[in-house]
């Protein structure tokens, strides 16, 4: 068990290193000349003075060979130093750390909402014997994955802030300010969980062991909740692993819509001002969240299904 965890942590570190490399390739190598890009397309369109560029290049180390740059950057990144923001001059790490709590609040709330409502909807839809109710419930998730998140956010603002005056339209204040953005963020994720769980439940209910349980004289609810649900929850768990990173990324859109401060806002601003170090930090951080959540989920799998031994990922 301990060896397994150690191995997984090493693997996770490997993925993070690779993610950093991808971010480096995309952001520092692909533009060819990031300083010109920064200087040319930044806030100030006119500042293309060659001397200034040369000076900037030297400052950021872009005049060195790529591999040397990469090694230097990686060395600093390992120590948690992703450089300074081009736009504000503050260290990237502390910029992200300051913005993180608000976003963490938002994404955690959204994830819980998505699991509860999405999972509940799937269980209810597959349990009910009323055809019309099942039809109605099963038609909701496809709708949920089809609507643009930003639009849902705007519509919620229109309905619940401007018309009903129930919740604030923007800002970070308290629990009331969290409600609308969390709902908007949770809708596509919850819909996805719901789709996957419902499909998996329907498949599981056709398994022969479910028939064995019915042949024992077990009732509908017992078969559904005690036998089928646990077997059916693995695919949904896998989806949650993917969603964790996506929620983080979608906060870029939602925080923009609701003018909330947070990691998403920081990212949107950084992309807008071509603030490469910040974007790089965000990409690596997103990958970190994904790796962390999936590490936890991999450890949960064997608790749900004893066939999955800790030695490897589910087949």
């Amino acid at each position, binding site marked *: 068990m301990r060896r397994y965890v150690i191995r997984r942590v090493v693997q996770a570190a490997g993925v993070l290193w690779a993610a950093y490399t*991808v971010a480096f390739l*995309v952001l520092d190598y692909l533009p060819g000349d990031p300083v010109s890009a920064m200087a040319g397309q930044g806030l100030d369109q006119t500042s293309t003075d060659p001397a200034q560029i040369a000076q900037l290049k030297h400052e950021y180390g872009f005049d060195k060979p790529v591999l040397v740059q990469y090694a230097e950057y990686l060395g600093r990144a390992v120590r948690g130093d992703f450089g300074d923001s081009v736009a504000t001059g503050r260290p990237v790490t502390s910029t992200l750390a300051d913005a993180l709590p608000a976003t963490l609040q938002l994404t955690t709330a959204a994830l819980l909402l998505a699991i509860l409502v999405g999972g509940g909807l799937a269980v209810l839809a597959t349990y009910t014997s009323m055809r019309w109710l099942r039809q109605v419930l099963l038609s909701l998730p496809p709708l949920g994955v*089809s609507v*643009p998140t930003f639009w849902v956010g705007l*519509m919620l603002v229109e309905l619940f802030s401007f018309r009903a005056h129930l919740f604030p339209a923007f800002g970070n204040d308290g629990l009331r300010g969290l409600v609308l953005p969390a709902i908007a963020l949770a809708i596509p994720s919850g819909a996805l969980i719901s789709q996957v769980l419902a499909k998996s439940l329907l498949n599981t209910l056709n398994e022969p062991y479910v028939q064995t349980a019915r042949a024992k004289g077990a009732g509908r609810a017992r078969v559904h909740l005690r036998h089928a649900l646990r077997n059916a929850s693995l695919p949904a768990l896998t989806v949650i692993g993917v969603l964790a990173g996506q929620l983080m990324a979608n906060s870029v*859109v939602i925080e923009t819509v609701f003018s909330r401060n947070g990691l998403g806002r920081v990212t949107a601003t950084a992309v*807008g001002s071509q603030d490469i170090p910040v974007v790089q930090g965000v990409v690596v951080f997103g990958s970190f969240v994904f790796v962390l959540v999936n590490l936890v989920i991999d450890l949960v799998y064997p608790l749900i299904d004893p066939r999955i031994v800790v030695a490897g990922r589910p087949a």
Partner: protein
Amino acid sequence: MSQMVDEGVAAEAAVGLGVPVEKGRDGAGVVRFFLRRPGLVLSIVMVVLVVLAAFWPNLFTSRDPLTGVPAQRFQAPGGAHWFGTDELGRDVFSRIVHGAALSMKATLIAVAVAIVVGGLLGLAAGFVGRWVDDVLMRAVDVLLSIPALFLSLALVTALGYGTMKVAIAVGIASVATFARVMRAEVLRVRQATYVEASRSCGTRWYGVLGRHVLPNAIGPVLVLATLDFGTSILAVSSLSFLGYGAPPPAPEWGTVIAAGRNYLANAWWLTALPGFVIAATVLATNRIARALDGEWTRR
């Protein structure tokens, strides 16, 4: 279980009597198939309309999407302007119709990038196997570990703004998914008995690949492509909503909504109706993907 067995009877009986078991693919069967699925028909109509709008916007409207009539600012939806008018008096419906060209072009490019790059990677990994598979799939794992929108944003930061660049950024972000599905399908088909049977009767590797593996593996990839079409519409519109797409006067769908956002309190139609169009288009492509999925798995 017993159902399967007993459906087998019918097939067996029919064959025994020399009657071919028809799969219902004759004309009447096709009509019945669609009559029972009005939602699917509606979805196909929706997608056809959007594609027509993308190529021949003048079929739907004769109004100019870029120049407005200042006297007709902020008119609510009605007979004259189906979707109302915006702050410059431009017809919103016309903007959406003309915007389809930009948004569809971006989406198609994104899907094409994903399917070509991802498909080739997956095919190579699945068919060649061994170290090629290991290397490619590790790379894909890494790409998957970066949330798609973050990866797109990084690419936009590097490449700059514009419809084309957004499209490429969105396409590359879904390369990994395509590579995975393609590889899984190739592996599944490669292990199928009929592939070994073909190999054991002397077919060369390229024959096996071209005649057995690709045709049998491509189905789920096409389904994914249809699904990805919807996902890409959403991703492209998100990026253009954030302001990284075509610069303002251009009526890209996400940009139109972003512009309308400022007048949310007094002109709801500027955001609500374009959003409806996006949602309906995505819903339609998802519905079609579901139908294709059913067809492929039942084949």
